């Protein structure tokens, strides 16, 4: 049985190392940080494998070697201990863990700070139950769930939560950092390879913890700049009565309770700023995902969402009941928010 287990683990490891069908694993890293950690992990796994084989080997050996023959009634010589031996198997682990500790410290130092002379992106990551808000203060861009990054840039992010504890994790780009209310954590990561990376909230944060995902899109600087300049555009003016109706719903109607559209207007004097619990709707259709990156953002899904958000993501905050012509109107306008 133990053999089977060993095979399993080996098989598993190889499966993992070969990047297992585009899984979001730090063992197929897309950033220097993840790379260092992957390297470290391989080392310690091989160390563990040696110990594993050694000890299980001893166990299996003594199982077969010292099995009592059925006819044997003689007691074996009684062995009470062996101080020298015990000293050895106290000392060896000490050396092993000491090695591990040195490796740990080395890698921590290596991943502590970004390499000099790389372009920097400032990013504010804000965790909401159950979606991610990404704010690029220097670029004046705010988006949700879909994180755009230029390849080769070092991203310096601060993490805040508006409600409970979340944890930000895009395995191929960086390890986890908890997103804690009342405490601003920081993290940096950098991706040199354009591509799409799956991330997800890693600290249980309530009903839809499983549906609080991240789609990270790393693109060439050119593509990124194009994306940014598009994101800066104001929402298009409404054309025709239907769109006007939708526009009013969004800016003054029921939608405006949770959502903003483009620039958030300053609150009327004397009133506190409205706490927006939903993503900004501007450039909605420029995102490829909706509902905490749980679904592709297609017109059909958008319509289903407007019809019954609770069926798609039970327990989320969008509990409005919209009547069919409102939905038609909204579809007409929202689908134009490219």
């Amino acid at each position: 049985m133990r053999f089977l287990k060993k095979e399993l683990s080996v098989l598993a490891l190889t499966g993992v190392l070969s990047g297992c069908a585009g899984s979001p694993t730090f063992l197929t890293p897309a950033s220097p940080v993840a790379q260092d950690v992957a390297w470290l992990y391989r080392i310690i796994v091989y160390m563990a494998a040696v110990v594993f084989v050694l000890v299980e080997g001893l166990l299996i050996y003594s199982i077969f070697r010292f099995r009592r023959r059925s006819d044997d009634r003689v007691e074996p010589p009684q062995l009470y201990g062996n101080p020298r031996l015990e000293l050895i198997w106290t000392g060896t682990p000490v050396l092993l863990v000491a090695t591990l500790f040195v490796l740990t410290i080395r890698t921590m130092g290596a991943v502590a700070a970004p390499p000099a002379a790389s372009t920097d992106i400032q990013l504010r990551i804000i965790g909401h139950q159950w979606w991610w808000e990404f704010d690029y203060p220097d670029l004046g861009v705010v988006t949700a769930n879909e994180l755009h990054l230029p390849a080769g840039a070092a991203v310096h992010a601060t993490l805040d939560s508006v409600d409970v504890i979340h944890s930000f994790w895009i395995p191929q780009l960086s390890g986890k950092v908890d997103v804690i209310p009342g405490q601003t954590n920081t993290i940096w990561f950098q991706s040199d390879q354009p591509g799409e990376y799956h991330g997800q909230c890693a600290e249980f944060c309530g009903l839809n913890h499983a549906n609080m995902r991240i789609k990270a899109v790393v693109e060439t600087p050119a593509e990124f700049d194009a994306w940014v300049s598009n994101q800066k555009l104001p929402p298009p003016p409404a054309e025709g009565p239907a769109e006007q109706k939708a526009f009013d719903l969004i800016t003054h109607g029921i939608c405006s309770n949770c959502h903003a559209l483009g620039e958030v207007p300053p609150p009327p004097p004397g009133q506190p700023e409205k706490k927006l619990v939903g993503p900004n709707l501007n450039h909605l259709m420029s995102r490829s995902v909706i509902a905490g990156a749980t679904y592709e953002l297609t017109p059909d899904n958008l319509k289903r969402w407007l019809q019954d958000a609770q069926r798609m993501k039970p327990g989320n905050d969008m509990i409005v009941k919209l009547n069919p012509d409102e939905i038609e109107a909204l579809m007409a306008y929202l689908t134009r928010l490219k």
Partner: protein
Amino acid sequence: MSLLFGPGSWAWEPSVLIGLLATSVGYAVLVGPLRRRHHSGERVPVGRQLCFYAGVLSVFVAMVSPLDTIGDEQLFSAHMAQHMLLTFVAPPLWLLGLPAWMPGLLARRDRLARVGVRLTRPAVAFVIFNGTMWAWHVPFAYDAALRSEPLHIVEHLTFMATAVIGWWPVIQSWPAADDDPRPWRILYLFLSTFPCTALAAVITLSPRQLYTFYANAPLQLGVSPMLDQQVGGLLMWLPADMILILAALIVGNRWLADQTGRYAQGHPPKVATSE
């Protein structure tokens, strides 16, 4: 380098030097000639004597080496290291060097002896040692000690004195005959980790500077004040706990040894098997 050997980096404070010298000589005389003359007790093994001198040495390192100067002027962490030497390194070493008969000499003055016995009851000693430890780390007390030299001396003296009291129940009662059963000493050491861990945790996890003195101390050797404070806390956290755990294991080891005789030390029986 200049830190280690630069001018004024070593604090050749005469009072300290004289004190240490007097202690060592006094000890040497007590365990040497005086003991032989008055037959005050069995001779002290060299190892034990070395322990005592090691204790003196660690005080020397704490009080005279640059550790002292840096701690007093620049780094909380250095100051913490100094205090660790004064409370968790020197006192146990001294007590290891103290043969059971030596306090016996004092015990002839029975009033003093009675006080000593009271003070070194585990519960009492525990409170005195940890109470002092905590009291001095209250920000205003700590800052005050840093600002006034006399108070600073009082601080260090109380640290050492109470540490001796705190370690007494652990070390002194052996090799002398045992009144309190040894297992209690393991528990005593185990419980002693709690106040240490707690105090260290508060210092380490504090999001702000606790001690104004270091918050606006001069040159920080390139260490940010916050990091300095965290390192200081950690210097108390792990080393203190580890020393206590180590002590607990040594005590437990000796205790089990004579609870089991040679049993646990692995001597196979002479007869191998019975037919």
